[in-house]
């Protein structure tokens, strides 16, 4: 079983294709929609927690790319700007997945992109705007 959170960027012309259906039907992938912003004839974004066997997973991603969709791991879209971060820990109180935590040895705020679901609550909760989420 292979599992990864991915961000799918739709160009405007692909917004009406039933790609979720295809991912399930053709590639037997399990998916959980973490975030979706899709409007008719507009570019959109979809954040999926995608899992299945490795071969199907790779085929599914290839299929998405063949349609001209941008596919990236979620971890590429969310980042902690370590120049700005003052390691106060305010974000750790609001992060729902535990992706942001305070390391109680070093007292640094640590960001684990694997746990992040892209909700972006941290972006405005950070007093110094050190969390950067690029999901539209």
């Amino acid at each position, binding site marked *: 079983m292979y599992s990864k959170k991915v961000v799918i960027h739709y160009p405007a012309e692909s917004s009406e294709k039933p790609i979720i259906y295809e991912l399930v039907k053709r590639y037997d992938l399990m998916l959980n929609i973490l975030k979706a912003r899709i409007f008719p004839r507009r570019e959109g974004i979809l954040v999926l927690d995608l899992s299945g066997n490795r071969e199907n997973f790779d085929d599914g991603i290839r299929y998405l790319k063949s349609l001209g969709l941008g596919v990236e791991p979620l971890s590429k879209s969310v980042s902690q700007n370590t120049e700005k971060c003052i390691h106060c820990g305010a974000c750790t*109180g609001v992060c729902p997945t535990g992706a942001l935590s305070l390391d109680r040895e070093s*007292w640094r705020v640590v960001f684990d992109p694997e746990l992040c679901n892209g909700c972006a609550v941290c972006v405005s909760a950070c007093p110094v705007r050190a969390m950067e989420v690029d999901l539209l």
Partner: protein
Amino acid sequence: MKKYKVIKTYQEINDKIRQGKAVVVTAEEMIDVVERHGDVEAARRVDVVTTGTFSPMCSSGAFLNFGHTSPKIRASKVWLNDVPAYGGIAAVDCYIGAGEVVEGDPLNSVYPGEFNYGGGHVIQDLVAGNVIRLRAEGYGTDCYPARKYERTITLQDFRDATLFNPRNAYQNYNCAVNASDRIIYTYMGMLRPRMANVAYATAGQLSPLFNDPCYRTIGIGTRIFLGGAQGFVAWPGTQHNPNVPRGKNGVPKEGAGAIATIGNLKEMSPEWLVGASILGYGVSLYVGIGIPIPILNEEMARYTAVKDEDIFAQIYDYGMDYPKGVSKSLGETNYKELRSGTVVLNGKEIPAAPLSSYLKALEIAAILKEWIERGDFLLGEPQQLLPSVSE
């Protein structure tokens, strides 16, 4: 008059600092020293304990004088990067407050407001050397005829720039929960409904005023680390209140003492003065402060060895009680529990997150230690101590 086994004076300690012989430890290190050797021996060995805190401190700001213009202006209204600065002082003086929001900000009309820029950010931009747009308006007088003035300016172009913070380094602070059933946005951050998280501030055992709980050494003229430079304690902070419930160790169990601080903004750094945007609340300024505590006797050794588990704080409901002005503690916790990340309130475990950076507090205590060891920083003997507990 208490009899001490160890008695040192400021002069003696400063002489040692000048000779590079002073023994300096941080407040964290002092805990071990006293545990291992006892307070009397610790007082013999250690001369100075350094502390630190890095937290949003809204009651902060800077007096700026931009020098006389030609023709002259009596600047009664002043803006820095469109953030209003108070102009009701002499001709080209103004005060930029950390909590002032940029003009035209939607505030909370788009709830919760983001408050992306304000006085705290102006101060950070200034110390970062960034170019600021200064705008001033006057009403025109015979001696100050100009009505408008505008220029770009950097910190070094100001004639004078003095950071003067009326209330900093609050000795202790409320822990905040939200007992209501909707999410709220406070100066303690976002609080989830039904007490799903608790927010706290202060650096606990490293925090300056916890290490001198009865203000035996901190007073007007105490030299401190302020915003990355050397500054001073100018006065008791506004709302300074020594007469609150305290533990046997003298440490207040709720907000108590505070200090007003002053220093030359031109010497400070953007690493230690950081503008803050607090969702749904407003803007503020993270201020880095460190205070050296002279170990004049074994009592000061004992005070500076205070541990997180012996420092208590109260939990308040910011959903209903606090905004109404009802100060009813829901329960007491200590900084060991808070810093562990989980607090138990009425049998329920609640995740705790800080607003203050413990990492930065550690760095400040370490920098101050280094300054003193190098002989670059001498203790300032207070001219008058802060008002303390009524005997």
